[in-house]
């Protein structure tokens, strides 16, 4: 199946290939999650990772970001080993995991200000705009523990709007969003891809994003068996 | 039984209006008693043959110390009302009583040791039940304040603090008796016992009584003022508050 995906790539634009994973192998508790997994992500692409519960989506994302390093295989960033250029890689990466990184005591604004500062310098006006774009106008100064589950998720989505990161890695960002939230996030993904960024996203939803590519971990596994 | 009086009692609006009427009188009385008490104590109490002019400390100490013992019972009663009847007013009083009580306890400790340094030659004495139990009352009150500020939700905080106040009230009593008992068995009764002070005549106890009344009045005024603020804040959406604010 690795070929199946690789074949679709546009080999003329190799310099636009951001992230490459080659021959990834990961096993947990004696269960092989994936073996021989290859994937490439180009600028301007949205790649959805699908798979049944426990198929290894979260694990794959964490491996690609470098949070988890119990894997075998190569991960390349613009053609060179990712770990050799950690600074550039991390400077272009934004990861939002299952746990979204929102402190409950701080307000949405304070949370966003700190997250942004880890990547670049952002003015408060920009932060406020981002917050109201994700539907948190009026909640900028409430402490986050008093927000609903979906509202907390929205705080983390505001990070997408203020970061300069080119590569977004999102682990189930749709879970608690309502219909308008889902539409908003889909449009954000499309915009990002349009402007040359790339997105890696896991979700069980059926995404409506133009030119969506899908990697199905279950298929990968079945083929292997 | 007719409970209307009880519910009326629980109405913040009723309390606010009632205290509006009483406050001027209370404040007036407080100022008079405080002034008379302080002037009398400072200028007119004759020196004790043994304690010289330091009896002037006692006037303040006794008044503050006595009042400080009222806080835990007050908070426990208010807490019970909060837990059982969910009366908002009781919690507003309890909320403001805790920090004020911590202040009172602290001043008791400070004036006590300022006097102790003269009388006992030491600022602090671990073997005295009254001192130790007052110190722990201070700790517990700070604990209640800390819990209140830690819990973000008003309702949760109210009930959690109510429970802690009740437990704490029992605890202060137990600590006091256990320290007493501990020291009685430990060593011959502490030579530093506070009771049975030199037989003081009226020239001493009259200003003391004046001061006690003054401090109680001050306690009432301060607590009422703080509770009224609390009412304004929590009832800010009520029509009568908005009307009141627009006139202010």
């Amino acid at each position, binding site marked *: 199946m690795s070929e199946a995906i690789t074949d679709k790539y546009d080999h003329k634009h190799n310099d636009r290939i951001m992230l490459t994973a080659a021959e990834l192998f990961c096993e947990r508790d004696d269960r092989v999650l994936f073996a021989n997994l290859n994937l490439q992500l180009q600028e301007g692409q949205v790649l959805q990772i699908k798979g049944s519960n426990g198929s290894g989506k979260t694990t794959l994302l964490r491996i690609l970001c470098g949070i988890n390093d119990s894997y075998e295989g190569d991960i390349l960033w613009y053609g060179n080993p990712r770990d050799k250029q950690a600074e550039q890689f991390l400077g272009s990466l934004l990861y939002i995991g299952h746990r979204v990184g929102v402190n409950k005591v701080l307000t949405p604004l304070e949370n966003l200000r700190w997250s942004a500062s880890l990547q670049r310098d952002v003015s408060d006006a920009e932060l406020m705009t981002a917050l109201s774009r994700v539907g948190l106008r009026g909640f900028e100064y409430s402490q986050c523990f008093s927000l609903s589950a979906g509202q907390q998720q929205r705080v983390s989505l505001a990070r997408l709007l203020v970061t300069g990161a080119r590569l977004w890695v999102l682990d189930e960002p749709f879970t608690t969003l309502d219909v308008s939230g889902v539409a908003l996030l889909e449009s954000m993904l499309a915009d990002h891809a349009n402007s040359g960024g790339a997105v890696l996203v896991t979700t069980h939803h059926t995404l409506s994003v133009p030119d969506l590519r899908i990697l199905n971990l279950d298929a990968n596994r079945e083929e292997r068996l | 039984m007719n409970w209307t009086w009880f519910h009326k009692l629980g109405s913040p609006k009723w309390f606010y209006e009632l205290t509006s009427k009483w406050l001027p009188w209370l404040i007036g009385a407080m100022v008079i008693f405080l002034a008379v008490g302080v002037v009398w104590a400072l200028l007119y109490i004759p020196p004790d043959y043994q304690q010289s002019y330091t009896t*002037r400390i006692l006037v303040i100490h006794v008044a503050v110390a006595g009042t400080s013992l009222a806080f835990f019972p007050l908070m426990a009663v208010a807490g019970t009302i909060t837990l059982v009847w969910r009366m908002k007013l009781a919690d507003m009083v309890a909320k403001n009583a805790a920090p004020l009580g911590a202040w009172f306890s602290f001043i008791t400790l400070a*004036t006590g040791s*300022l006097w102790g340094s003269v009388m006992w030659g030491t600022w602090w004495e671990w073997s005295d039940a009254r001192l130790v139990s007052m110190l722990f009352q201070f700790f517990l009150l700070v604990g209640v304040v800390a819990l209140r500020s830690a819990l973000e939700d008003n309702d949760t905080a109210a009930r959690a603090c109510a429970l802690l106040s009740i437990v704490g009230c029992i605890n202060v009593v137990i600590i006091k008796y256990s320290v007493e008992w501990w020291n009685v068995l430990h060593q011959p009764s502490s030579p530093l016992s506070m009771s049975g002070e030199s037989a003081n005549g009226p020239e001493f106890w009259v200003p003391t009584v004046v001061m006690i009344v003054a401090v109680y009045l001050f306690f009432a005024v301060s607590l009422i003022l703080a509770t009224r603020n609390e009412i304004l804040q929590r009832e800010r959406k009520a029509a009568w508050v908005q009307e009141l604010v627009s006139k202010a």
Partner: protein
Amino acid sequence: MIEAIQFASFSEFLDMGGYGFNVWSVYGLFTVFVAANLISPVMKRKRIVRDLKRRAVVNEQQSN
């Protein structure tokens, strides 16, 4: 009951029979204590009223 004022001179008054530090500390503390616990609720009340007024104005503007 009220004897005469107990002090002949002001410096004697300050000295309090040698215990000036203790006596005046107690009265100083007491003053701070009383003043703080009266002034702070009064100040707070001012703040609250100002805040509520501002809010009322904002609400009015919004509803118009």
